[in-house]
């Protein structure tokens, strides 16, 4: 095994060197060689969650179209846009490669990641991808045991009361949240309570519940907690704090941006004196989770996690433009109330996944424009209402900005091979010596197959198998000296960076 790259890797900070008894666990997991064996701190949803996560897309979409139709408020005859299985498998393997070599992809091929987020993250990997993109995964690595600690604490009764009242009101048609006291509602309680302990000065805001619920549909509670933290602190800082000033400011920014995107809609709304808060509060605070059809929610969130709040603005602008953007459309919106009703009963066509995503991707509203407008509106706010009371940290526009703002060295996000090799781990057989990369890779696949993850359908490709293996194996408890897989990752990523390039033909 070449020594060069090993030395080039900076030693991870102390946090990472303290996984609870990594060697023992490793030994045991190696012996078992089943990825289903739960190991501390891993991304491995319990079977019941796993079941649901696997079926997420179709399941939820069905539940939601039911919800919407039975509700009568907005008949979305919405069909899932099926991605051909072959394409899906291809995407999975591409995503798997990215996730396994995340830092490199972020550093060198960020545009590609963005493009792939725009095309939609494969459902089987969505939860993992969101954790990587948001930096929730890094947070979790930096704070091992923190969630458990918060989870054990009693919590402020003032918040617990409000949270409990909301538990049965999140996506009540979703399988996970349907039963009172069921595991979905329990996890929701744990995540939201943990947040009030993590940020006691912010406490609980009702709009956090749908956000947390969507996260929980894709990952276990601890991971969902850290993703929620990232959303509240990095993506949308101030949205959920006491005075909700940030959301009011963004309302003004949205309205101002609308002037360029759709002067007709802008003029109409300002003539009718419709405060942006009347239509955008729920849109923005819930990141459209309660507005759009489910498949569109997921696609919007894929882009949002990668590109940040810009996506939320763009979605809002696209919706406004299509609802109120022409004189014909405005004919039925003579009054303030009619206009708001129109915005609440948006046309299913506009919200439909492919159309919406295309429009959002093409809408030329940039981070810079948003930031510039932010300054203008902030100044206006200061002139009219004085200093904002809530000083939120600056918002970070997406995955790359978050990564770059991460202070100090951090453990590299590394691949999650099924077999983690530690040179000093007392393990049987030849496995106590680092393997050359290819062998590791093979081993990984073999193991995935052996674990029975592949037995469901013959159509299931290698990608799935590796996905399963990758999921089962946490990168965060890689011991510091475990550099062999890192090395292999390096090699593999080099390969992938070049070889995947030409194959990227989907969509």
């Amino acid at each position, binding site marked *: 095994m070449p020594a060069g790259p090993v030395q080039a890797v900076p030693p991870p900070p102390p946090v990472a060197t303290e996984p609870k008894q990594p060697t023992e666990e490793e030994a045991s997991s190696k012996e078992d060689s089943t990825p289903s064996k739960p190991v501390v701190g891993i991304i491995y949803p319990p079977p019941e969650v796993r079941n649901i996560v696997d079926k997420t897309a179709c399941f939820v979409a069905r539940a939601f179209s039911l919800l919407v139709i039975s509700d009568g408020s907005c008949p979305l005859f919405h069909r899932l846009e099926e991605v051909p299985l072959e394409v899906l498998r291809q995407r999975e393997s591409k995503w798997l490669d990215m996730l396994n070599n995340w830092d490199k992809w972020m550093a060198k091929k960020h545009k590609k990641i963005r493009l792939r987020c725009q095309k939609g993250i494969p459902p089987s990997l969505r939860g993992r991808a969101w954790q990587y993109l948001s930096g929730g995964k890094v947070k979790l690595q930096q704070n091992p045991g923190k969630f458990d600690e918060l989870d054990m604490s009693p919590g402020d009764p003032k918040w617990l009361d409000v949270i409990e009242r909301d538990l049965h*009101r999140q996506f009540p048609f979703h399988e996970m949240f349907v039963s009172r006291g069921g595991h979905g509602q329990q996890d929701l309680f744990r995540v939201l309570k943990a947040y009030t302990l993590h940020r006691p000065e912010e406490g609980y805001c009702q709009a956090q519940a*749908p956000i947390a619920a969507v996260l929980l549909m894709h990952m276990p509670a601890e991971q969902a907690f850290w993703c929620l933290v990232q959303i509240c602190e990095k993506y949308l800082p101030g949205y959920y704090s006491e005075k909700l000033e940030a959301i009011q400011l963004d309302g003004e920014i949205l309205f101002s941006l609308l002037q360029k995107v759709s002067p007709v809609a802008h003029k*109409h709304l300002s003539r009718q004196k419709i405060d942006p808060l009347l239509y955008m509060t729920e849109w923005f605070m819930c990141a459209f989770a309660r507005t759009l059809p489910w498949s569109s929610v997921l696609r919007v969130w894929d882009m949002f996690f990668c590109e940040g709040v810009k996506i939320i603005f763009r979605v809002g602008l696209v919706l406004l433009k299509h609802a109120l953007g022409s*004189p014909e459309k405005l004919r039925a919106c*003579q009054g303030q109330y009619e206009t708001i009703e129109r915005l609440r009963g948006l046309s299913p066509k506009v919200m439909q996944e492919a159309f919406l995503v295309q429009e959002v991707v093409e809408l030329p509203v940039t981070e810079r424009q948003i930031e510039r407008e932010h300054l203008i509106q902030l100044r206006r706010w200061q002139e009219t209402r004085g200093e904002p009371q809530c000083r939120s940290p600056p918002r970070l526009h997406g995955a790359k900005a978050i990564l770059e703002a991460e202070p100090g060295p951090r453990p590299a996000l590394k691949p999650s091979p099924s077999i983690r090799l530690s040179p000093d781990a007392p393990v049987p057989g030849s496995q106590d010596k680092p393997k050359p990369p290819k062998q590791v890779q093979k081993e990984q696949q073999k193991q995935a197959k052996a674990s029975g993850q592949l037995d469901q359908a013959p159509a299931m490709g290698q990608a799935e198998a590796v996905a399963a293996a990758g999921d089962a194996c946490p990168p965060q408890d890689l011991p510091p000296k475990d550099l062999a897989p890192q090395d292999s990752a390096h090699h593999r990523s080099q390969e992938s960076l070049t070889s995947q390039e030409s194959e990227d033909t989907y969509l």
Partner: protein
Amino acid sequence: MAETYDFLFKFLVIGSAGTGKSCLLHQFIENKFKQDSNHTIGVEFGSRVVNVGGKTVKLQIWDTAGQERFRSVTRSYYRGAAGALLVYDITSRETYNSLAAWLTDARTLASPNIVVILCGNKKDLEPEREVTFLEASRFAQENELMFLETSALTGENVEEAFLKCARTILNKIDSGELDPERMGSGIQYGDASLRQLRQPRSAQAVAPQPCGC
């Protein structure tokens, strides 16, 4: 879709989180209990045309988020409301205790003349009651509010609450106490809206509102 009505009233539904505001609205509009409702973030809407004392009135109802921190946002919805349902939960003293603050908001932000009916909701949960009828009716009297105990679950007194509020506003219009012509009264004459609905507009799409709300 042209609806005929004599008046249009803007109503608010306000009160603490989890008191059943949205369920009251849903029961009133749909005549059934909303089993699986989301909590309100920002504002929800509903409208229904009712017959009150021989007049047809369109109620335009704005249902607001109850959590304290949304108040800074929901305030912008209050303007120009003619009536309000002020809701608390008879099984939660806490929601009753915050009534005074909600009332102040309504009178300062909507209009000092806003007609408010106090609704003690979840009447069906009698065994868990924390606020007595007597206590609440005293509060109502002291603050010049009408008062009903309601159940969004069974529908008891729900329709009555909205109608009672509307009737009082109509009476005040008749007696000259309320002037629909005044800006921000939360009241509009129906015929103006009718004209707009019946005559398709030509070139210009937008007309300034006859009323300032």
